[in-house]
């Protein structure tokens, strides 16, 4: 059964359709791989029994000709999605023992399509982080290592467990969420495809809230086609999320035409700061040539407010987080630390339940929203956010898509950046602007660094044009012929 975990999602779907193997066999192979790679710490909760039970139903449904689009496909679910009856932690101590009595809309849609959940993947606490080191359940290990260097590397974050599990072939795909780069950055670090759709494309209902004007769910897979297949099952209008778009969902897989002739691709000058890692710059240059060779027109563009995106994000996201995380008070769910009064109980519970990075962000957000500081911080950030958005609007007057690197560096060793919050924040310098603007974006694995570590390229388009994102990404993927992580044989 070793072969079964080497398949990608589209290949597994075809094999199931042809009757080459059963959903139970496919699921068992992935459960075995998951068990053999616990050292990576990619899953917080494994649900093998539920998965096998579901796989039997999937085989039955297929026999009855009632197979959904993802019938029998084993997935990992970021532990930020509420799953009915299955522990949901957001990788925080404060949600100890929380078993949701309901299912998030995105996971409900995946279940309806027939997908099988292997378990809940690790992440940065409340999705706040770029390295997965802030998880209460310990850091995830990137399955990639630099040539000749035994040090364990971070998988990126916050969807680090999903990215590492997909890279190591423990599941055929996984859900992620992206607030400032939390799908695209770990995808780049782990050599997988990570797609953040337009804000509003997927319902946020039942996803543990971090920053509500930015949070967006998306797929993480080993191929662009798999991401398109998975997004089709995740997306769609949901009356339970007032910001979910009442728009029809195109067939994203059909957008993979392989043809970018005449498409105008923007190259933003501001994404080439002084001192940009030369390997990243070289790879970006290769991406430009691949698209040019495929018939696209390359256009130099400018996004003048790019340098203000990170500081803007670090007001907007913490402000919204400080409000969203007010619900963790020891009363309705999770951890409670007793105190002498109600206020004392709140303060002790939150002191014990939140990790350092979450505390920092809640405090920054509280300060930015407090009387006398609101205009100087929060209102100012909302105005700069508008300018960042307008930069993109103007750029899309002259281009159809934008190509940039996904991250300023390859994956770094665990512990290397944990002492300095601001240097950690800089990891998201290329992903945050599109998040603030609500644009769709993808990271495609495009090459290896000199040390043999994966590097990604990012494609962005205007809102609601995921089809062009997939089309361009498909062409890059084919030209890059990225090798993927070699399978080690066990599993």
């Amino acid at each position, binding site marked *: 059964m070793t072969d079964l975990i080497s398949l990608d999602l589209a290949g597994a779907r075809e094999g199931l359709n042809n009757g080459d193997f059963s959903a139970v066999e496919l699921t068992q192979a992935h459960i075995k791989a998951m068990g053999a790679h616990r050292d990576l710490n990619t899953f917080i909760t494994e649900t093998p029994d539920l998965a096998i039970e579901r796989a039997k139903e999937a085989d039955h449904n297929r026999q009855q000709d009632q197979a959904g689009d993802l019938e029998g496909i084993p997935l990992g679910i970021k532990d930020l999605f509420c799953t009915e009856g299955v522990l949901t932690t957001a990788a925080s101590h404060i949600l100890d*023992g*929380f078993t*949701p*009595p309901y299912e998030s809309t995105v996971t409900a849609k995946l279940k309806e399509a027939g997908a099988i959940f292997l378990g809940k993947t690790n992440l940065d606490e409340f999705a706040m982080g770029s390295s997965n080191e802030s998880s209460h359940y310990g850091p995830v290990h990137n399955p990639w290592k630099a040539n000749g260097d035994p040090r364990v590397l971070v998988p990126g974050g916050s969807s680090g467990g999903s990215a590492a599990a997909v890279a190591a072939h423990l599941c055929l795909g996984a859900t992620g969420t992206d607030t400032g780069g939390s799908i695209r950055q770990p995808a780049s670090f782990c050599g997988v495809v990570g797609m953040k759709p337009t*804000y*509003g494309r997927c319902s946020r209902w039942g996803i543990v809230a971090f920053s509500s*004007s*930015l949070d*967006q769910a998306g797929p993480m897979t080993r191929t662009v086609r798999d991401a398109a297949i998975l997004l089709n099952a995740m997306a769609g209008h949901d*009356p339970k999320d*007032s*910001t979910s*778009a009442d728009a029809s969902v195109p067939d994203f897989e059909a957008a993979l035409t392989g043809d970018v002739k005449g498409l105008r691709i923007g190259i933003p000058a501001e994404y080439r700061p002084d001192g940009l890692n030369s390997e990243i710059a070289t790879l970006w240059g290769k991406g430009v040539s691949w698209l040019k060779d495929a018939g696209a027109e390359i256009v130099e563009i400018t996004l003048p*407010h790019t340098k*203000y995106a990170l*500081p*803007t994000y*670090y*007001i907007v996201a913490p402000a919204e987080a400080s409000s969203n995380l*007010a619900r963790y*008070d020891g*009363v*309705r*769910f*999770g*951890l*409670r630390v*007793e*105190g*002498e*009064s*109600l206020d*004392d*109980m709140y*303060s*002790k519970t*939150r*002191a014990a339940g*939140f990790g350092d990075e979450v505390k*920092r962000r*809640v*405090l*920054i957000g*509280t*300060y930015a929203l*407090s009387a006398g500081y609101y205009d100087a*911080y929060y*209102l*100012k950030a*909302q*105005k*700069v*956010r*508008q*300018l960042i958005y307008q930069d993109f609007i103007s750029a899309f007057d002259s281009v159809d898509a934008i190509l940039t690197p996904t991250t300023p560096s390859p994956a770094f060793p665990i512990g290397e950046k944990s002492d300095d*919050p*601001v240097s950690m924040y800089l990891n998201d310098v290329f992903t945050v602007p599109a998040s*603030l603007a*609500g644009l769709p974006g993808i990271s495609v694995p495009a090459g290896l660094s000199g040390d043999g570590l994966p590097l990604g390229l990012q494609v962005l388009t205007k*809102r609601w044009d995921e089809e062009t994102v997939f089309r361009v990404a498909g062409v890059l993927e084919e030209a890059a012929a990225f090798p993927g992580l070699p399978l080690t044989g066990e599993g």
Partner: protein
Amino acid sequence: MSLDDARVQRIAVLARIELAQDEIGPLGKELSGILDWIEQLQEVDTDAVEPMTGGADQSLRWRTDGVEDGGHAAKILANAPEAHEGFFGVPKVIE
């Protein structure tokens, strides 16, 4: 922007996060460092700019103001650290 200990303590009270005495100083330094870095936003001219208040262009939809769901008290209380007779239990608030 440097936050003194009293200011850090005040923010922590607003956020309902208890801080140990020896946490306040180092945390104040970290938060000040982050705020210093954010300070660069002040150089952007935003006088004539409308704030962007959400992630979507669309305005929020209207819906009927009606009860659509409910009656799940037992399910909701199942996760509560303390529950009595259909209510959440909290420390005594009235002396």
